[in-house]
């Protein structure tokens, strides 16, 4: 299956762009998407504890299952206001 990864702020810079399409095996969870990205960008490993994720616009956990066509947003610590 294929998902779309959205990255913001420092994560967007690290991933060299705001969007990445990611091919994952059926049954993959959020943590598998993260691991696939960290394989290519090892600096992600240090950022997992501070990163929240949103699946299709709603806050999710690293244990949540993914489905084909999902949009997975990677959210660094926020700084709005």
């Amino acid at each position: 299956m294929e998902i779309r990864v959205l990255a913001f702020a420092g994560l967007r810079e690290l991933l060299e762009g705001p969007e990445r399409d990611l091919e994952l095996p059926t049954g993959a969870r959020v943590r598998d998407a993260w691991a696939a990205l960290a394989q290519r960008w090892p600096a992600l490993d240090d950022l997992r504890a501070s990163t929240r994720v949103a699946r299709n616009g709603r806050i999710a956990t690293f244990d949540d299952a993914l489905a084909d066509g999902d949009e997975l947003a990677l959210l660094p610590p926020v700084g709005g206001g």
Partner: protein
Amino acid sequence: MFRVVREPIKPRELERIARAGDGGVVTFLGIVRARADDGRAVTGLSYEAFEPMAVSVFESIAGEVRDRFGDVATAIVHRVGELAVGEISVAVLATALHRGTAFEGCRYAIDQLKARAPIWKKEHYAGGASEWKANA
């Protein structure tokens, strides 16, 4: 009125949400400061947002304001893009029959926005350095 905008915020536009019975309107404006918390001179800020989710968080916050403080209408507008020192980054307006609820609602809304809304800020410093800064 829940928006993420690129153009300068016009605070008076948020007043449109006031109802005929409202007697108190409280507005918070966040302003780009010339100094970072660590004292460095700031030349400007870049904000970016996960826009649909940010708007949805603004709507949730406004619902929580009603649940907690009663009949308060809330408007939230956050700017993104490049902002100069002195410009308005965010406007939060709460309007209610009485001033107490308007003050409480406005304060709750900006506190929650800062804690939860998917919006990010990069500080640009004199000399050319820049850094993403999370809220404390």
